[in-house]
């Protein structure tokens, strides 16, 4: 059976505001049911990309298909009917209750008899008992949850969440993470922009890193493998007498460096082959080994490597 049509297809999309380029030549695809992380520093063009795909602003060039519909001004209403966007600030009417806010948006999506939809959305974000509260009296975290409930109302094919945990304390952020994880398990397609890397690593199937141009797209583990060679980390109680002589005679070790006394990072092609050889070598010279293990690079390492490359390139 052929692959189903992707939820998002973006092809060489560019947006310029006069002389300033918000993003340029961006291409990627997002499958239905996928949680796709869109990462980048402030001003990288993440929010502008979401606004463009959400038909709020027009691209300067390029093309895209959103929820199966070509991105164009004429298709704006139809696209917006199939997607939901939660901007960075939830933008609630503070003098209205939670239910009244949701009733309003249910009406804007043309939903009649929206009572059960509203109840389901509030239950999904654990706000059923706050339905009658004025939004002005809710904490920031609860307002974000109302914003999430609002995006659930229309049962969207694609949900865009723009910095959903921005400005939230760790507890409130974790609640939002749990909600997104729950949506992921239900198969909701989510396009998540964030600059919280641990959030992306935890929640996303794939990530893209944008810094005006798209730097990489892939699974976090693939990006780590692409950018960083495999490495072993060796720690000894006492610094080795002649680490160079030891490590260069082990065939599976391609290079080494020492960050601290008694701490060594060895570049290897295959850690499972190198680790026993390195252990034998260390024992043969009488090293007092504290630990030996595979080095792990986080998504943050990948991100910083790419963004640092951009900074260096701009300096040149």
């Amino acid at each position, binding site marked *: 059976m052929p692959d189903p049509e992707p939820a998002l297809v973006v092809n060489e999309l560019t947006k310029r505001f006069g002389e300033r380029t918000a993003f340029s030549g961006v291409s990627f695809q997002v499958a239905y049911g996928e949680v796709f992380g869109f990462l980048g520093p402030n001003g990288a063009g993440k929010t502008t990309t979401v606004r463009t795909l959400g038909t*709020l602003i027009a691209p300067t060039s390029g093309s895209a298909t959103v929820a199966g519909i070509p991105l164009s*001004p004429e298709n704006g209403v139809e696209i*917006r*009917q199939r997607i939901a966007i939660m901007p960075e600030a939830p933008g609630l009417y503070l003098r209205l209750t939670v239910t009244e806010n949701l009733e309003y*948006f249910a009406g*804007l999506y043309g939903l009649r008899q929206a009572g059960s939809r509203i109840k389901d959305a509030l239950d999904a974000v654990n706000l059923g008992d706050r339905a009658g509260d004025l939004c002005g009296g809710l904490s920031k975290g609860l307002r974000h949850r109302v*914003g999430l409930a609002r995006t659930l109302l229309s049962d969207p094919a694609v949900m865009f969440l723009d910095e959903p945990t921005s400005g939230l304390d760790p507890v409130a952020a974790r609640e939002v993470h749990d909600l997104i994880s729950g949506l992921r398990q239900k198969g909701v397609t989510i396009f998540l922009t964030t600059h919280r890397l641990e959030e992306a690593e935890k929640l996303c199937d794939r990530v893209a890193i944008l810094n005006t141009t798209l730097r990489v797209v892939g699974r976090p583990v693939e990006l780590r493998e692409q950018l960083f060679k495999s490495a072993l980390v060796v720690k000894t109680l006492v610094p080795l007498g002649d680490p160079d002589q030891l490590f260069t005679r082990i065939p599976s070790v391609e290079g080494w460096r020492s960050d601290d006394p008694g701490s060594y990072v060895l570049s290897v092609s295959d850690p499972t082959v190198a680790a026993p050889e390195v252990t034998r070598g260390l024992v043969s010279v009488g090293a007092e080994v504290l630990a030996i293990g595979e080095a792990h690079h986080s998504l943050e390492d990948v991100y910083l490597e790419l963004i640092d490359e951009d900074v260096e390139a701009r300096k040149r």
Partner: protein
Amino acid sequence: MTHLDATRVRAVIRRELRDYRRTRSIVVTMAVLPIIFLIQPTLTIFLAPPSAAGDTYYRLPLLILLLVPVILPSTLAAYSVVGEREQGTLEPLLTTPLRREEFILGKAAAVMLPTLVLSYTVFGLLLGVVRLFAKPVTASHVFHQGPVLLALFLFTPLLAGWAIVVGMAVSVRASEVRVAQQLGTLASFPPLGVVVLFGSGVIHPTLPVAVLLATGLLAADVRALRIVSRMFDRERLVTGAKAVRS
């Protein structure tokens, strides 16, 4: 022809009316302003000297009531778009399937409804007070102002419509609520020039003249509403920059 969805328009109207009810300053302003405008005409009519000539003396106090449908909606209309932008509620709204025509129509209707209710209530109160408590000769003069009373009835929604559309036009393009409200109020006054010409006797108020002017005002309102719909540009509202497509 754009297909308008009644559910979406109703949703906008209902939300706006709820917000008015919950905002004390709007409720107080809406209640107090018409009362203030009721005082002057009432005093003028009740303190009329015996020599007051019906046609000219009683015409102006009645026409002053037309300030109510001009002033009352102008600040609300001027707030309608830029206010949402300042509150941060505009962007979520623009991400929904709501068409710009539905948004404009819903917002305009939500301002128009309380304006009409209050304006006609004020007219009714004045005429009721005159009928019940004024001397018969005074009441007779007032109720003999047929074309003026017709003008009051006809011009109220039309002047309110103009004030609303102009206020929204300013609101769509303004970057700050206060500026929008000042400009919106100023821009809503020009059609009152016709009323002044009526009241001062430069234009003699007859039935055909009243109907003709009302028709002209209606055409201006409809045209202005279309222009405001075209001015509603999502990209400009979100980013402050006009959309340029390749």
